[in-house]
């Protein structure tokens, strides 16, 4: 991706100066705090890579959440989708016979393939064929072929266990479908996103426990190299899956965690979507004024469905990476992650009222939360105190961005200036 794209990610409309710069100043302050308090330990490359690796997984739902919040929506189900995805992922890798995981995820994946095949063939055919009926038939054919191929491919993998590429496709497909389901209900049912995704939050965890079996048992992931002797009773996952938890290395030096590559790719992709595409512009329009968006020809229902679907897919991808990083799938893997995701988005300057926000802001929000946790860990601050501090930071960050503190301070010092007045008429 070009440099220009990265630089322009934060050029979104509607930002006051504090809103735009606040997150960066906050990040710089936290980073400086880390250097002052912990010095070399903090700056040590291993510590930095550790922080990056830890935040990269949780950052994926935050990136999806950014798009959702820009439409003035909210997605409370991301944590549950992470949990569900981690369970499904672990079972697909480790089991050698059809399970509840395959029964749920494979048909949905085949459906996704059907849809993808249809859209892809249609897009291609439209360039060459003008008759819409022939385009429709051809596209349906393309979808069926891709779906059939996918079904066969999945069938062949059940006896040998699913591969890394397979879980990287199948599990996000599950998230995509569940996200789309939330989106459709929100759009067509005209129900508050808070309520619908609250329902999905509960249902997805329930589904995760049901699939895991025995009230939500943990499904560990084993590798050949780990030296487990009980071959024949316990299967192993492919080594390539283990690589997801490793680092990108050059000449034996760890450069960057593999999970961070996913994170960076997601930030760039969503940044491009938000700043460069019609879909992205429509997200801002819906969040800014839904009625105007509708009257300007935005297909509001379709856009909403898609945005929750994308958020679900990113969450499920985070579940796969969680499974790799912690070598297990468990039905409480993503517990309270939705709150961290929302916190990162909000610290990054995206308005919960919708209509404005950037993914670079979210990137900074994720880094702020990550470094904060790291510094407090290095200082051996107890986790309960960390939670309190995190709460203070979240609220404080928003107070600063909204200019509230500045205004209170000015009033306190007797100045009669108001900061947020705008010329009207």
């Amino acid at each position, binding site marked *: 991706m070009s440099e220009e794209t990265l630089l322009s990610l934060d050029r979104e*409309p*509607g930002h006051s100066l504090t809103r735009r710069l606040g997150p960066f100043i906050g990040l710089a302050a936290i980073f400086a705090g880390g250097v002052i308090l912990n010095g070399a330990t903090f700056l040590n490359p291993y510590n930095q890579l550790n922080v990056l690796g830890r935040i990269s997984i949780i950052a994926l739902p935050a990136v999806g959440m950014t798009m959702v919040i820009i439409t003035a929506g909210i997605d409370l189900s991301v944590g549950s989708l992470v949990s569900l995805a981690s369970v499904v992922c672990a079972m697909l890798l480790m089991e050698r016979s059809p399970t509840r995981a395959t029964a749920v995820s494979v048909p949905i994946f085949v459906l996704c393939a059907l849809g993808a095949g249809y859209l892809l063939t249609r897009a291609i055919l439209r360039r060459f064929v003008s008759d819409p009926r022939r385009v429709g038939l051809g596209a349906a054919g393309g979808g069926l072929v891709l779906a059939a191929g996918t079904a066969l491919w999945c069938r062949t993998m059940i006896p040998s266990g699913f591969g890394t590429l397979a879980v990287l496709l199948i599990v996000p497909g599950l998230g995509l479908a569940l996200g789309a389901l939330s989106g459709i209900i929100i759009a067509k049912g005209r129900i508050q996103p808070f309520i619908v995704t609250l329902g999905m939050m509960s249902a997805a965890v329930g589904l995760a426990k049901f699939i895991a079996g025995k009230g939500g048992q943990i499904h560990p992931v084993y590798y050949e190299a780990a030296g487990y002797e009980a071959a024949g009773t316990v299967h192993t996952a492919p080594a390539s899956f283990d690589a997801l938890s490793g680092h990108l290395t050059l000449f034996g030096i760890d450069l960057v965690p593999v999970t961070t590559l996913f994170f960076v790719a997601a930030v760039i992709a969503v940044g491009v979507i938000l700043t*460069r*595409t*019609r*879909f992205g*512009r*429509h997200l*801002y*329009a819906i*969040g*800014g*004024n839904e*009625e*105007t*968006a*509708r*009257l*300007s*020809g*935005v*297909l509001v229902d379709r856009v909403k469905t898609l945005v929750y679907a994308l958020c679900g897919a990113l969450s499920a991808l985070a579940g796969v990476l969680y499974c790799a990083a912690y070598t297990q799938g468990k039905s409480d893997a993503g517990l309270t992650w939705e709150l961290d995701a929302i916190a990162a988005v909000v610290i990054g300057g995206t*308005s919960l009222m919708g*209509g*404005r926000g950037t993914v670079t802001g979210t990137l900074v929000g994720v880094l702020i939360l990550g470094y904060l946790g790291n510094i407090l860990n290095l200082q051996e601050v107890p986790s309960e105190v960390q939670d309190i501090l995190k709460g203070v930071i979240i609220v404080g960050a928003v107070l600063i961005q909204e200019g509230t503190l500045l205004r209170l301070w000015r009033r306190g010092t007797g100045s*009669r*200036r*108001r900061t947020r*007045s*705008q*010329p*009207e*008429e």
Partner: protein
Amino acid sequence: MTPRLRMQAITKAFDGIRVLHGASLDVEAGEVMGLVGENGAGKSTLMKIVAGVHTDWDGMIALDGVPRRLGSTREAEAAGIAIIYQELNLVGELSLAENIFLGREPTTPAGFIDYPEMNTRAVEIMAGLGAGMDVTRPVGELRVGRRQLVEIGKALSQQARIVIMDEPSSALSETEIQILFSTVTELRARGVTVIYISHRLGEIFEVCDRVTVMRDGRTVGVHATGEVSRQELIAQMVGRNFEQFFVKAGQPQPETVLEVRDLTRRDPDRPGRRMIDRISFEVRRGEVFGIAGLLGSGRTELLEALFGAAGAETTGQVLLNGRCLDLRTPAEAIAAGFGLLTEDRKDSGLVPDMSVIGNLTLAALADLCRGGFISRVREQELAETYLHDLSITAPDPQLPITSLSGGNQQKVLLARWLATNPAVLLLDEPTRGIDVGAKHELYLHLSRLTRAGMAIVLTSSELPELLSICDRIMVLCEGRPTALFDACEATQETILAAAAPAV
């Protein structure tokens, strides 16, 4: 005699930009003072200073000869100043009565809201305005014009000594305006001072004793309304002479562009009722087709139905250039060649946080895209073309659209639709809340568009405007067409007669 309100040498800046340069205003007790000027002249800013909204200004304000500095809207209210804003400030979910007494609810000794008392008083106030309304209804269910009356009722309930009305009539029907005028007269008789801001000079002459003219943040003239002519006022407002205010479009061409047959729209909230009922008409190439009618006559509902915004509630046939359309969504209508400039900029026109450019190109993005990616170069070019063509004053088009004045915002929204190259442009109250200069410009643009062959369907509650710029005028009453006039044969009286419901 000491004036009730004296403002002298008021200056005020927003973020370093001066909007008032020594404006002044003197109003006597029991006087109705008109305040006129183009958008951006500083009228609303000056009034917000009186109302305690803006507190960082320089200059002098005296109430009954006593210098005052109002530090908040509460203080202003306590000093007997009530302001009714151009953009209404009501809570849609609360009832009429709750809105009127918001923050000042009468309470029982136990501290609960005394609803019987509140509702009784609200009924009295609204009856005083000649509007017998169910005060327990949520305000959100009312049309804009009715909400305006509630705002006025709210100001009256505060026992205000100075009532400021910022564009009070812009959303009112002729009947409601008459009620408003009698209210203003009544206030004057009670010794209340009224400051009346309006772009409609006819109203100023009808209801005001004196008129203050502002231009570019300065007070440029004060006249008794009996001693000044309309032309002189306009000249002073714009700083130059106006040859002709209204601009008549060119001659319509013979071929029919839009044909509507038996268009009907059911009311989803009241089964069996129809918002518009079997409306048929034709619009020719280059024609401005006006729709007149009182509030609630179905003007807006008709345009929405044409635009596909009413979805499945609509039945009937719409033919564009002879092709029968079945429009179920605005997206389909836009693709077919319609554009709709809505009545309420704030509710359904602006995307407030989005840039000027983003707002301008919103409906035309499909033409600027390849594979879903927006071409920034083409977007910029398109925006600049229209910013230039419509002479929109936008210092930085990357800033949110809310940084522009009302007239310029409206021009951006017009540009949004011109950018889609519509065959039929539907304009719902296009001149509502914009100043004389911007209105004149808008007429010029409409005339240019019709000469290029565009068909325009336009609603307005300003009859002189309809009569001057339309070719034909259809009158609606309670959802039914009651008359169709050639504009040159119609008069305000004939239109009003057709618009009034038969009792």
